[in-house]
């Protein structure tokens, strides 16, 4: 319990620092939004007036404090451009990004777990080497490159799946899922390799334990040994990594969402960056950082659930 509280405090400090850094980055740097809104022929007074309307002329720290207390009250500010409330804008796009990330990790886990277990069982043999080499190849294909390849093969050449566009779930589950398969695969085909390697390494260690030999000697079927006895102690690094990857994917979804024209948080964010809509940028980054922290904390909770030793042992640390 003390371990978890300590982690929580640590993560909250991180969250605070992230929002502050972003606010600083977005606000102190040159090229402020007032010039953009005012247009090219605006006089300096016009720009100044817009600044005052938006409250940009006040000191940075005061604005941060106002923004921060606002967030605590649930008010994330408004878009400078459209006047849309930032919280609404982010939350309405969030389900799309969530679906993308969850599907991507699902595909990645579906690839990583069987292949990781198999190559741990047959470590050093042919299968293990084939998996190792192919994981190296996949690791070297960035997500955006994989996206182009998948679009070409499955979208243009075979014509099986739609290339771009988004269908809401209300249009039918399959219609909705179809639009997510290629984007999710673009992520998953790179991510599974890392997961697989970690699982394989841990699994090899666990399979050498005495209690596994004991279970084998009892004549327990192999699948049962692997799933019931070996999986749990092998899954610590795996789960940590899974959590870290989700954090990366939320950030990386910017590219994939814009390639496949999915209306998620990433699209919102990149649109805001091009338009210098600082409140929206700030909102998106804060949202992503919160997601990162929540995921990390969940991972820590999973640790404690999976390994009883963590609950007591790390309490002092």
């Amino acid at each position, binding site marked *: 319990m003390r371990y978890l509280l300590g982690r929580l405090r*640590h993560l909250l*400090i*991180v*969250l605070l*620092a*992230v929002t502050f*850094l*972003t606010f600083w*980055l*977005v606000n102190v*740097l*040159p*090229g402020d939004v007032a010039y953009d809104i005012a247009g090219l022929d605006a006089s300096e007074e016009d720009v100044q007036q817009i600044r005052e309307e938006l409250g940009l002329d006040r000191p940075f720290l005061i604005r941060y404090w106002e923004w921060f207390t606002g967030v605590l009250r649930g008010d994330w500010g408004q878009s400078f451009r459209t006047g849309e409330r930032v919280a609404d804008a982010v939350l309405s796009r969030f389900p799309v990004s969530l679906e993308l990330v969850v599907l991507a990790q699902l595909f990645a886990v579906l690839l990583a777990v069987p292949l990781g277990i198999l190559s741990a069982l047959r470590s050093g043999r042919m299968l293990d080497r084939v998996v190792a080499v192919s994981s*190296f*190849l996949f*690791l*070297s*294909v*960035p*997500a*955006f*490159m994989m996206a*182009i*390849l998948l*679009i*070409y093969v499955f979208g*243009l050449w075979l014509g099986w799946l739609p290339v771009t566009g988004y269908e809401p779930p209300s249009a039918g589950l399959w219609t909705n899922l179809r639009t997510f398969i290629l984007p999710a695969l673009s992520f998953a085909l790179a991510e599974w390799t890392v997961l697989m390697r970690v699982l394989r390494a841990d699994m090899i260690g666990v399979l050498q334990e005495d209690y596994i030999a004991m279970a084998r000697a009892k004549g327990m079927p192999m699948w049962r040994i692997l799933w019931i006895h070996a999986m749990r102690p092998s899954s610590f690094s795996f789960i940590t990594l899974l959590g870290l990857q989700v*954090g990366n994917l*939320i*950030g*990386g979804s*910017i*590219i994939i969402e*814009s390639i496949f024209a999915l209306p998620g948080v990433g699209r919102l*964010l*990149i649109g805001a*960056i*091009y338009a*210098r809509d600082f409140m929206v*940028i700030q909102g*998106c*980054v804060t949202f*992503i*950082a919160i997601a*990162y*922290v929540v995921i990390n904390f969940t991972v820590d909770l999973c640790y404690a659930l999976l390994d009883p030793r963590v609950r007591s042992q790390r309490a002092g640390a």
Partner: protein
Amino acid sequence: MRFWIRGFEANGRAPDMASTASEARSISAGADPADSAVQDENRAAKVADRRRRRFGVLFWLSVLWLAALISAAVLADYLPLYPRDEMDFLELETSPFASENHLLGTDLQGRDILSRMIYGARVSLIVGLCAPAIGMAVGLAIGLVAGYYRGRIESLITIGLDTILALPGLVVLLLASAIFGGSLTVVSVSLGLLLIPAFARVSRANTLNFAQREFVVAARAMGARDSRVVLRELLPNVILPVTAYGLVVVAFAIVIEGALSFLGLSVPSPTPSWGGMIAEGRENLAVSPHVSFIPACVMFLTVLSFNLVGDALRSRLADIRESAV
């Protein structure tokens, strides 16, 4: 200085290095001249091990590819290449090997893909080498300090690093190039700053590993100042594994630069870059996929090569360190 102490290793180790009793026994057994059978066995195993660990064909192919790419990028101005921006309106989107003039074909605007690819390599390589260099220089310093002094400094540093890690990296890069305008310097520096935590963690872990060793303890016992211990005793040991790790980060940096220029937020448009070329080819992917796929293949091969070389060096270094213990 640090070799004659090796005899202490078995019992002089710090407790958290977890030297088990059996390990200590095997070390003393190896030193026992009477036990020559064990020694022979060890030697045979070592030779076999060395043969297995020798760098393979793939490693040398990767080195060859990287050497060729780097020299092509450096010597691009002297190579018999088409001007990278010249549009050949007679040969738009020609396929590779189909035209006498353009070996790898032309893109949507009739520009020579081979020459754009080689000039694009400059962008990727400059960012790919500079950003990790910046990250490594700073990260190494931070990691050494954190690993050597521990305590409050270390926890402060950890919070700082976690903050950078919690920042969505790509977003910060996009912001930086949207605000400052995309240029090699902006991309390299901001990517370099974001790479600091990764390097700092690796350096810290390695420093922790060495800071407990006898040669460090001995240096301190002889009255060496902290700066001397860190720079003369720890740094030479820590820098090798960190550099090997750096090669893998180079691959990562090239990928990130590719993603940025794919989004049009790295070097501005007429300058060729791999990511930009891939993005341009997207417009007519169905008809002439080679416009995207050639730079994609080149980038893939480069990233793969850096990964392979880095990985091979890393496991080689791990072996050397193990055998030194």
